[in-house]
């Protein structure tokens, strides 16, 4: 496999957890509830999915269990933020810490476990297309599923009644309420859906990517998904583009391993700089730097509204006090 084809393949597969988690986060945030617990929900999904697969012997059932684990943590966030009106940021960070702690503790027994996970589904002929053929047509069912969620979520949010209601709730819950929209049900549903997606993203990592469980194996991908939603300014197609962009950086840091600079135009000083820039650990900061750049670029002349954030994000709604 050529370097380019290898990079393309890694990019597509590394984009899957980002896509899944960010799709879930975008649904939750568009209903007005920020969930910074994505990392924790992903870890829960990864461990539960892995354990579920070993116990039941079916990767699909394991995957469903992983989604359930994500939803369970999300339910906690929903109760705290929607019903009890606690601070969404505090609750979200708590969720990440909780997810990390719980999976570290309960995951010990599963380290070293072995599963076959999701295998590649190779589509003949198409997978022979140079460079992208293998990347797009020889991937796991979960990778296909992640790609499929993009148009589905887009349709769900922008072409259905419930999607319009979600947008309305995220913009102005009081207005939605007076129009007869069940605000709390919708917020609960969206946060839970976000948990299902994050759980799926985590389960994909352990079942469709590594085929093992390791402590804190999400390695910050949950946070990247959160950043991705901001980077994409809450637009579905930009999440797709952003997920590939961030995944490509990830793939690059995997593949190059910091050795590009040695041969860089024969210039030692330049090589040092390039080596620094392609250092895997440095490269992992790129998604965040890109997000900061977008924030800076938009906010320099505009406001949060122009950024595209739902107007009522972070603001809990309660009916009896205006």
């Amino acid at each position, binding site marked *: 496999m050529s370097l380019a084809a290898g990079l393309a393949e890694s990019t597509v597969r590394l984009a899957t957890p980002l896509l899944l988690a960010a799709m879930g986060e975008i649904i939750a945030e568009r209903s007005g509830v920020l969930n910074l617990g994505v990392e924790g929900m992903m870890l829960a999904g990864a461990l539960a999915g892995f354990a579920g697969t070993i116990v039941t012997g079916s990767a699909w059932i394991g995957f469903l269990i992983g989604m359930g684990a994500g939803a369970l943590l999300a339910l906690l966030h929903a109760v705290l933020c929607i019903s009890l009106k606690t601070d969404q940021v505090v609750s979200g960070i708590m969720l990440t810490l909780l997810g990390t702690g719980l999976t570290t503790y309960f995951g010990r027994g599963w380290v070293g476990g072995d599963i076959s996970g999701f295998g590649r589904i190779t589509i003949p002929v198409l997978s022979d297309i140079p460079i992208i053929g293998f990347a797009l047509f020889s991937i796991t069912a979960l990778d296909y599923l992640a790609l499929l969620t993009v148009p589905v979520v887009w349709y769900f949010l922008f072409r*259905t009644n419930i999607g*319009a209601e979600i947008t309305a709730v995220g*913009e102005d819950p009081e207005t*939605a*309420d*007076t*129009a*007869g929209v069940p605000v709390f049900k919708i917020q609960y549903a969206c946060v839970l859906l976000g948990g299902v997606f994050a759980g799926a993203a985590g389960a994909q990592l352990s079942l469709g990517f590594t085929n093992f469980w390791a402590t804190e194996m999400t390695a910050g991908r949950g946070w990247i998904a959160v950043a991705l939603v901001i980077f994409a300014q809450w637009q579905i197609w930009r999440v797709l583009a952003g997920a590939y962009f961030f995944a490509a950086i990830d793939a690059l840091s995997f593949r190059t391993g910091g050795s590009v600079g040695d041969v860089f135009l024969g210039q030692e000083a330049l090589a040092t700089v390039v080596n620094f820039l392609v250092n895997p650990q440095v490269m992992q900061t790129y998604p965040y730097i890109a997000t900061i750049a977008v924030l800076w670029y938009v906010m320099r002349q505009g406001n949060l509204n122009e950024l595209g954030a739902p107007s009522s994000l972070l603001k809990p709604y309660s009916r009896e006090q205006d």
Partner: protein
Amino acid sequence: MSTDALLEVENLTKRFGDVVADDEVTFSVREGEIHGLLGENGAGKSVLMKMLYGLYSPTSGTIRFRGDPQQFDSPKDAIDTGIGMVHQHFKLIPRMTVLENIVLGERETSSPESATGFGDRFRSLFTRERDRPRERVTELADTYGLDVDPDSKVWELDIGEQQRVEILKALYRDIDLLILDEPTAVLTPNESQRMFETIRQLVDEGLTVIFITHKLWEIEQMTDRVSVLRDGELVETVETDDVTQAELAELMVGRDVLFRLEKDAVDVRAPVLEASGLRAEDDRDIESLSGVDLTVHEGEIVGIAGVSGNGQRELAECLIGFRPLEDGEIEIKGETLTDATPREFVDAGVSFVPEDRYEHGCAADLSVMHNAGYKTYRTEKFESGRYFLDYGGMAAYASSLVDGFDVRGVVDVTRTPAGELSGGNLQKLILAREMRRDPDLLIANQPTRGVDVGAIENIRRLMLDQQEDGTGILLLSEDLDELLDVSDRILVIYEGEFVLETTPEETSKWELGMYMSTGEAPTQEPPGEIAGVGE
């Protein structure tokens, strides 16, 4: 109760903690009538309507619709029963289109009949239909003259159009009873007249309307019967034809209301404000104040008349150091304060009542105590030790303001957020804060806008008292009666310049109106009495 009652409310009570917003309210609305609901700000009108619309659940009491007791757990229940409401602050989502706003929550599908099977439920959630609703909206809009483009975004609409969308939104839901919460508060007189025609047409076709207002002439012009609320209690329901405006005012406020205040002549003394050649830009960097000279003397009230947006706001903000001057000079009591900071203006004895009470007049989430003190907290009065504030003293000070200026709705000065006060009461709190520090100059921008009759009288009286104490007052107002009543001198501002200087004795409403709208002297004789406009 009469059998033709569409809505009956019996002993409806709403408490928030220790505060009783509505106390055993009983009244009924007949089918096909326009029923006025009159009351001062904070009398409990809005809370009452929120109970009828399912937003608040009553503490006790019953609501009957067509004779059947109702329990509304959410606005959805009220809508399904046939009640619609147009809120005082519009409930529209600016980023969505007119059509999306109207259809929101209705879950329209491609099949016109509503069905309840699982498949239908699925379809109502995961598909949508826009063509049929668009036709229906267009049809409603044509029938009632509520023209508005269903596909424009709400943020593009002006206030009048937004209100039409609100009415369409209610009508779209097939309602029998429409509640209008202070619908004219944000409209120009012409838009109000247009809305009144729409309402009459709707009533002719069988709709029943509850019309909430604190404007007496609207009650007189629009309603068949009127119920008056005072301090959360229903005082009386009367046939509109049987009462005069003065009687209604008395019912509402609980005492005689003076529509005109007696104003004693006050000696005018040394100037407190001398400004010359003021130039300033508005928020879009367009010149909105084009070289204005202005002097206000001790104990003088100078009124500034003008149509909104002719530089009043910029003038007021320049005079407190909030908006940078492009050119010109400002002296307060002989001290040059050109380009000084707002704090220096405050320290020089300038007080300010801003146009937007919630945005610039208070920190809405902070308590009444914090808000009451935020021009005086730096004085020795509240010093505790060297570096600390005397909170007890501040609370006592806030309480004295609340009592002295009759600010209602404050449960605990240290706890009640200023933003929870009704508009009129918040305004009284702001005036209290600004006046109790005994300023040399008071700049009041639209101090009585959106405030009820009782409070208006109070606020004007407070300004007159302050004037007697020697404060110079600059009053910016769109209410010509107010300007003519309290000012010593009146200046008309037009496109950032003063086009007329006069006194109440020398001028008339008509002349001021002509200068305000054209910037020039009237070219024709005044017509006879203009009917139907004004309070």
